[in-house]
């Protein structure tokens, strides 16, 4: 009962690697693969396939099963579950496994999996028991059991038999410190580093919807505190924040002592070795902070009070016109095309930092074609910043646009938007057969370096229990995913 196994499919729907299935019939994994492929073929868009597909056993209806599946790069990974099991366990396991592959190989793709199939097999064996219980998924413990395909292990392979006979230990593993000898399940024992370092990344992702009037309907930042820990021994860390109240709906890595957090908002933990996510939180401004956001939000009856939303760091004005040709409804309109014009302007509202890698996407509807656009920087900044910026970044940051004719998506890319600048996209397109029905929302993705929406600030990171002075670093980074309706 539980997770039956794992199947990795290539983009043609063929199985590349699958775990050992306990099931009595060898047809079982094939059925699962077939069910997923059929569902994918039947759907108009692969993203619209239900993520849990019920699979009927041909001979024995007493075996209920369903198949959770996720796309991952050019692979699709299936996780058949049977019995009355939480599909979320399936998805959680899939996510964990993808993370493990990511940690091991630095990426997940067909080529990587094929090149390292022996390691992937071993990982499957170690992470999933054949009766459906996930086993060891902590990266720390796994590295002891399954060697990552590092340069070192390659050297080991090439070296003489004697060397390999040592037991293929990791570079810094003492012989007695075998796997699972550690008292702390998420941290392996006997870690040693020449230089001790700990880096904390605060990554926030803004999820927002902005309505036609430019008022955010919903906007909150989801934060993730990621830690890269290279500390020897068993250090005990305490992380303090100057403004912990900005973090709501927190969830933590199991290493964090929850009592400490609820008592005095200190994150106290013995970290796992390596890279891990320490905590996740949601940020929505509370009532007593941030008066600045009113700038961005006009009061409107349908909008939430401006104090409940995270301000959007930019503003877009979009205009979209379709020329009414005569006889739109008549028979003559059929053959005619419907020319339309569009224009959009992005203004940065942030005064301190540029936003980077801005992607604005617009779905132009089924019949769109003949797209012509000009993406340009309009009038530079306002006021003081103008001349300096013009000279400094004139060549480096130029906007561009492209059109994906398969997905009918117009994409406008601005690599760097310095503070207080205006950028515009002007263009025309044509649509045949029907009046054009472009989506009413621009999808905007962007990044801001060294900035967090919540302004979460690490006050102090104390490391006790070990004698060394580690190097510590904190960095903030923001990404955003905004739907701007027009």
């Amino acid at each position, binding site marked *: 009962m539980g997770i039956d196994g794992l199947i990795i499919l290539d983009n043609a729907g063929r199985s590349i690697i699958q775990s*050992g299935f*306990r099931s009595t019939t060898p047809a079982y994994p094939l059925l699962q693969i077939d069910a997923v492929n059929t569902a994918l073929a039947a759907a108009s868009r692969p*993203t619209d396939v*239900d*993520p*849990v597909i*019920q699979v*009927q056993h041909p001979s024995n*209806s*007493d*075996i*209920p099963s369903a198949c959770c*599946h*996720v796309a991952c790069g050019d692979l699709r990974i299936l996780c058949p*579950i049977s*019995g*009355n*099991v*939480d599909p*979320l*366990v399936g*998805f*959680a*396991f899939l*996510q964990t496994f993808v993370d493990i592959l990511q940690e091991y190989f630095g990426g997940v793709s067909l080529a990587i999996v094929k090149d390292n*199939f*022996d390691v992937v*097999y*071993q990982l499957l*064996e170690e992470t999933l028991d*054949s*009766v459906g*219980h*996930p086993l060891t*998924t902590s990266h720390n413990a796994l590295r002891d059991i399954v*060697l990552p395909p590092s340069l070192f292990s390659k050297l080991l*392979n090439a070296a003489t*038999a004697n060397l*390999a*006979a040592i*037991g293929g230990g990791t570079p810094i593993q003492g012989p007695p410190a*075998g*796997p*699972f*000898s550690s008292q702390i*399940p998420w941290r392996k024992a006997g870690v040693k580093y020449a230089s001790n370092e700990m880096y904390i990344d605060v990554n926030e992702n803004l999820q927002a*919807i902005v309505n036609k009037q430019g008022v955010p*309907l*919903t906007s909150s930042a989801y934060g993730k505190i990621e830690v890269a820990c290279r500390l020897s021994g068993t250090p005990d860390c305490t992380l303090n924040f100057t403004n912990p109240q900005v973090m709501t*709906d927190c*969830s933590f890595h*199991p290493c964090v002592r*929850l009592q400490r957090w609820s008592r005095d908002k200190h994150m106290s933990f013995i970290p796992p070795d390596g890279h891990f*996510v320490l905590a996740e939180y*949601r940020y929505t401004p509370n009532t007593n902070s941030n008066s600045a956001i009113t700038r961005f939000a006009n009061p409107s009856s349908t909008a939430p009070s401006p104090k409940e939303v995270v301000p959007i760091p930019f503003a877009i004005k979009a205009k979209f016109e379709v020329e009414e040709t005569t006889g739109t409804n008549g028979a003559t309109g059929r053959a005619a095309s419907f020319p339309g014009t569009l224009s959009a302007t992005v203004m940065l509202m942030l005064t301190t930092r540029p936003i980077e890698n801005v992607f604005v996407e617009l*779905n132009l509807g*089924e019949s769109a074609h003949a797209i012509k656009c000009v993406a340009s920087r309009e009038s530079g900044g306002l006021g003081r910043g103008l001349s300096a910026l013009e000279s400094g970044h004139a060549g480096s940051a130029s906007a561009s646009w492209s059109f994906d004719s398969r997905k009918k998506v117009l994409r406008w890319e601005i690599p760097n938007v310095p503070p207080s600048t205006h950028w515009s996209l002007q263009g025309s397109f044509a649509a045949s057969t029907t009046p054009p*029905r472009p*989506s*009413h929302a621009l999808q905007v993705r962007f990044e801001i370096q060294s900035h967090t929406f919540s302004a979460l600030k690490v006050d102090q990171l104390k490391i006790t229990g070990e004698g060394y002075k580690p190097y510590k670093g904190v960095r903030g980074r923001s990404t955003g995913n905004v739907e701007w309706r027009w």
Partner: protein
Amino acid sequence: MSIRGPRKGENYELSVDLNSEYREKRKDAIKRVIASMTVGKDVSGLFPDVLKNMQTDDLEQKKLVYLYLMNYAKTQPELVILAVNTFVKDSDDPNPLVRALAIRTMGCLRAEKIIDYLCDPLQKALRDENPYVRKTAALCVAKLYDLKPELVMENGFLEQLHDMISDSNPMVVANTVAALTDIHIAATSSEPSTSSIDNSSTVFHITTAILNKLLVALNECSEWGRVAILNALARYTAADDKESEHICERVVPQFQHINGSVVLAAVKVVMIHLRNVKREDLGKQLIRKMAPPLVTLLSSPPEVQWVALRNINLLLQKRPELLSSEIRVFFCKYNDPLYVKVEKLDIMVRLANDKNVDALLSELKEYASEVDVDFVRKSVKAIGQTAVKIDEAAEKCVNVLLELIATRVSYVVQEAIVVMKDIFRKYPSTYEGVIPTLCANLDELDEPEAKASLIWIIGEYANKIDNADELLTLFVDTFTEESYPVQLQTLTAVVKLFLKKPDSSQAIVQQVLNTATKDCDSPDVRDRAYIYWRLLSMDPAAAKSVVLSHRPPISIPRTTVAPAVLEELIGEIGSLASVYHKPAETFIGKGRLSADAIQRKVGPGEDDESQLSTQKALQTVVAGQQSENLLDFGDEPSTEGGGLSGLAATQTMLAQPAAANLIAGTSSNPLDDLVSIFGNVSMQPMSATPSAAPGGAFGGFDFGQAPTSAAPQAVDAFAGLSATPAAPPQQQQQKPQEDLLGLF
């Protein structure tokens, strides 16, 4: 040994390399064998060669050989026996990894011959000093039980597992719990007659002592261990409300776990034990703490979102106050996959109240302008549901609908008209002003449902529409070409028109009755026409009181499933059942439930409430039966009183398995479930035939009569499930069921 292949080809080369004197060459050859195996080439012929490489100090190589063994053990059982010695030797290896690996692999081989050799090493492994070996061994016991239960009993492994719950290592405890749960499930689900083993010892009964150990281990083990322990806690029956409170309080910290499946399992445990918590304030507090983790799940990938949304939908039916202020996180984005959007839409309507209705409506209007037809239709439907749900917002909703009709996009207009019909049902005589607008779109309607809805509106307000007879004449003229629902509606509407304006419509009523009785294929239409005809000719006053009777107002049911089923599903939060919103029995083909099983399921705890709902559902069935006797009019006034007299009948029906089946919403035919999974669970109470539902049962669908309460609604939803009962005793049940449907 085995038959050697020709002395050439890939397998031959591999075989040479596998026997090479250089270990690196051998190891490389093993890798190549595995690679061939992966792409489906038959390398079973190399079995003896691979086996020779099993005894090695290189752990990686050993693993690869084991991998090969596991794959081919089924096809070459007689050769696997050769590996036994190495396995037994490995289980004594100084390296715990090797010991664990040997135990795990032996458990996976599923070869009879190996199994007999497994017991001794397993015995040792269960007492191993290394926790990794112990936890691997614990799971191995469950595997062994699956293959040969006798061996587990004979060797006393079960007792040992029970002892291991007290293990000092939390991961061992978690795996032990998982193993015991597996054995419990296997033992309780197998037929008692086929099992030679006394069930009582295999049942994993959680005592108070075990409970406390589990609660301690819960905070220490991995996410998967936590899920296993939480699932075990969900089965525990608390001695009193104090203990329930204690469990809830101890489990609540799990809400902050970073893994969504732990959160969902914790939510399940709290929801189950909350039933016994008597302190109101604590209950409220727990519910409040549940909201943030659920909201957090919505920032996950769409697949996880979907599972979360399905569960949230269920939780909201039980606890509407949960997430009441969080409607905005459910706003749909253009790029969301359709399955996520649809769920969000449903939840948004559920969360609608007079405070957030403005924001909700402007969102729904936005969605109605999108491109995806299905989603647009559902959005329009949601506007109607909002109107029916919130009286104060009805006018705004009507205005939004009018705006949408003005877009003249065909499917939007049609859906809006269907929705308007519901609004007319809920608020009779309030929005007559919009009727001309609706009628203006008459020519553009091509979907039966929209046509039928508009015809119903015309018939209902025949006396206020000057040219009602002209409009209806259009449909009467094409009567035989229309679909049956439209025919039925036309028939009823014309009769209404006649009763309201007898002078001007004599001819048309004559015409329609003639056509319906003479030229129509559908017995339903013919029967109804005859009834009308007879009524009209014998006693027009009676006809008036029947056809133009006052209809009870409709309302949005708070739940999409019957309360008893909801209670069961809440107990299975975070499972397939809760995702499909159907009890496990309906898709896990354990056959149909007996009435006994239902009674047991209802359980002593929540007896009163669910018993009541059960009876109510049955009353409605009986009411349907009675009204069938009265004559099945589209506009039959079904009063709640009808149910009262049916109470006696309720008792007799409870004895019939089919009736019980109906209540639990279970079906013996899994195929039905597949068909209707997504059709029935969506909330479309008064307007729609679930599009995916088996068509036949809904033949008599009539808009004149909508469900009067939640209970019949549940029956409506279930009709799709049990439309084709398999067992003979259910046949007699079929009839009232369909009649009931005819009423709606």
